[in-house]
């Protein structure tokens, strides 16, 4: 038969049309770059604006990190930017460093005060002695006892200044009110200050000059001379902090101590001073860029593989239904309810139908006719056939299976006796 006849679908061979090219521009589904840009302008603008706003807010609000006590550029109350700025205005050249090597180098200039504020206890026993004699005047801000031991300075950490009975008082991190201390010594800077209102750590000494004595808590300031150079241990360290510098004679003490020489090296040890080599130092400096490159290669590969070759074509598929669903459902229902008799009846009726067909008994044949015919052809007695085909009630699933097997066996036997080829499976064709 020919599948191609005359019909409207012959127009499948489309003749070229002149207006086709004119239409083509509107037929391009992929938007142009300009259209993409125009469409995404709003969102790009919104996201950009939000980002800018965030940055601005962060800028106004200042740094969000932990406030760093005694940092020369920290504006938080625990920072020391105020005193550094005032010193700079007063003509003192302040150098802020965070490495020991830089600090020692900067302190080489004559007329230098070296301030060491190791609040994070970074410097170890081998590094501490190097700051000794590096400059004319060494100011130690709240040094720890191990630091004092390493420096071989005759001073002992006493107790926190202004501590309550439990002996607990915050030092440095929080600018507390502190306690008022009288100078009580001949040190010019201390005498000019008269009294300070500060907290910190008290120190005691045997050799040096102790100022701002707080009794058993120790002194707020100790001045010693080590190998010809001045060393000041500043225990009442909050006098340097932004939050408390304006109280009592705090400012006078701070400026008097640090403005003594024309240079001031403000040294706050940083993790860079830790002697052990960190992984970052061990790695070559191209490692970081290489990692970024790997990320970018991954991104590019994702774009390369992920770019779709045009839109997906959608197709509506017709619905198709599996026909055996009802049969399966009914089988499960029989099994769950244990309807053995009902199931067996169905099997028996099927067997009887096929037996009647096989024996050419016709549609109207009764059970007794079939049993008689089967008994005749197989030689089995009618009673047992009747029991199998009609009477026996299954009491368990096991019996049901046995009966079902017997029915199938009987069908095969009859088919063999009748002479039908048993190996030929029925196609279910019912032409009658």
């Amino acid at each position: 038969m020919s599948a191609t006849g005359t019909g409207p679908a012959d127009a499948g061979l489309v003749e070229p049309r002149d207006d086709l090219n004119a239409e083509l521009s509107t037929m391009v589904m992929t938007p142009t770059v300009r259209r993409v840009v125009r469409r995404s302008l709003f969102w790009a603008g919104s996201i950009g604006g939000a980002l800018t706003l965030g940055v601005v807010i962060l800028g106004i609000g200042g740094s969000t990190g932990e406030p760093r006590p005694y940092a020369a550029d920290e504006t938080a109350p625990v920072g020391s930017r105020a005193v550094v700025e005032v010193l700079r205005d007063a003509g003192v050249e302040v150098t802020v460093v965070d490495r020991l090597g830089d600090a020692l180098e900067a302190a080489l200039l004559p007329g230098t005060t070296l301030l060491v504020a190791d609040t994070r206890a970074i410097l170890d026993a081998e590094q501490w002695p190097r700051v000794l004699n590096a400059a004319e005047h060494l100011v130690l801000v709240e040094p720890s006892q191990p630091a004092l031991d390493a420096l071989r300075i005759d001073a002992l950490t006493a107790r926190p200044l202004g501590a309550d009975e439990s002996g607990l008082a915050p030092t440095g991190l929080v600018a507390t009110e502190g306690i008022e201390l009288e100078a009580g010594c001949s040190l010019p800077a201390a005498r000019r200050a008269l009294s300070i209102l500060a907290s910190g750590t008290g120190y005691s000494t045997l050799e040096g000059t102790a100022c701002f004595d707080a009794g058993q808590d120790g002194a707020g300031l100790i001045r010693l001379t080590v190998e010809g150079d001045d060393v000041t241990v500043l225990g009442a360290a909050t006098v340097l902090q932004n939050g408390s510098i304006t109280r009592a004679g705090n400012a006078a003490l701070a400026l008097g101590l640090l403005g003594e020489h024309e240079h001031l090296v403000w040294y706050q040890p940083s993790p860079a001073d830790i002697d052990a080599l960190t992984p970052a130092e061990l790695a070559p400096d191209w490692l970081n860029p290489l990692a970024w490159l790997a990320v970018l290669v991954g991104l590019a590969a994702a774009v390369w593989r992920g770019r779709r070759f045009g839109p997906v074509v959608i197709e509506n598929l017709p619905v198709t239904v599996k026909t055996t669903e009802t049969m399966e459902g009914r089988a499960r229902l029989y099994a769950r309810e244990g309807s053995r008799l009902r199931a067996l009846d169905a099997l028996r009726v099927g067997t009887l139908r096929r037996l009647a067909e096989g024996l050419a008994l016709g549609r109207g044949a009764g059970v007794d006719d079939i049993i008689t015919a089967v008994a005749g052809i197989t030689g089995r007695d009618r009673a047992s056939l009747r029991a199998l085909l009609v009477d026996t009630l299954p009491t368990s699933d096991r019996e049901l299976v046995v009966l079902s097997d017997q029915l199938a066996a009987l069908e095969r036997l009859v088919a063999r006796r009748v002479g039908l080829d048993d190996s030929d499976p029925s196609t279910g064709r019912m032409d009658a």
Partner: protein
Amino acid sequence: MAITGWFVLLVALGAVPVVALSTVAPAGLVLLGWLALVVVLAGLDLALAASPRALHLQRQTDARVRLTETARATLLISNPTRRTLRGRIRDAWEPSAGARPSRHTVVVPPGERRAVVTELTPWRRGERRALHVTVRARGPLRLAERQASIRLPGAITVLPEFAARKHLPSRLARLRELDGRTSIMVRGQGTEFDSLREYVRGDDVRSIDWRATARRSGGPGPDGRPGQTLMVRTWRPERDRHVVVVVDSGRTAAARIADETRIDTAFESTLLLAALADRAGDRVDVAVFDRRVRGRVQGARGAALLPKLVEMMAPIDPELIETDYTAVPGLVRSMTAQRSLVVLCVPLESPGATRSLLAMLPQLTTRHLVLVAAVTDPALLEAAAARDDRAAVYRAAAAERALLDAERVAAAVRRLGGDVVSAAPLDLPPAVADRYLAYKAAGRL
């Protein structure tokens, strides 16, 4: 826009300068420089690629193809730009159109035209569509590609397979036997008188027409003398009968039995019956019906019949609605006035589901010869035969039950004067054809 694997590789190659130049320049700067270089190169490549938007595309697709056969869908690509188009093309056909290959590599020099051929081997009947064509044009450096999808609709009609046509030659041979064109001359009940001819040895003596012989004897014989020439009557089956086929396209037709939906089996049966009946000289009218007439072919004969039928059937898929059987007698009345063979391709399942069918059947059987062609599910027979374990026995019982239901419905149809043919999907078309031939031989049409 799209990037190629070479682009990715080039980005990855940045590792070499980043490491090698780390002693000379900061590695971060080298990285940024490399990326800038790659981006500039890719941009250059994009700028030098031919524009896919400027292409002129045109389709030439075969109008129709029979299911399981292969058609060609040609796409003509003209390049009016001044740059050579190098790239890949995707002709976006529906998945069931079976397009192969799905990607083509093309090179179209400026001002020239190339054709790419996609072979379509559809695996579903109906109209298969193509929506658009996607072109990726790469630049000379192979780093980046310009991509555009261009709407270019195309369609191909996929006709029913008509796999049952392999049964046609044997049935036609049987028809010729009936037709008396072979030497067999059995006078059957209800056959029509065809012609008179001279007796030849082997003819049934009972078919000698003595009256004609007597008339003929008056004239001169073959040798000039008054001769004795015996005349016999020949008979032929009835012709110009009417066969009406009604195919149910309701929700039950969507059921898939042995990898073929009921409606496809019905179409196969209809096509075989139509081809056979047309050769036998009968008129065949076909309607596909659920609640409305989905397709109808009437009055077509000869070579035009089958193309019209497959064209009508191609786009019809079953609807998920209950078929309105009460309207079928009216439909048949509208198609034929005389007594006809009405073949109903409907499911015979459970008595409940066929109640309305049985209710309307007497209206047809009083006027027409009604044949109900139903599909038997081979899975039911298989399940009824498997008795391996407890679960299988229960399944067998359920299957027997379903078979019994179908048998009861068939018996009801017979009681109402109809006739039933039921078989597995592949056996149904020849079974229907055989039944038709049996009617023909018996002169029941």
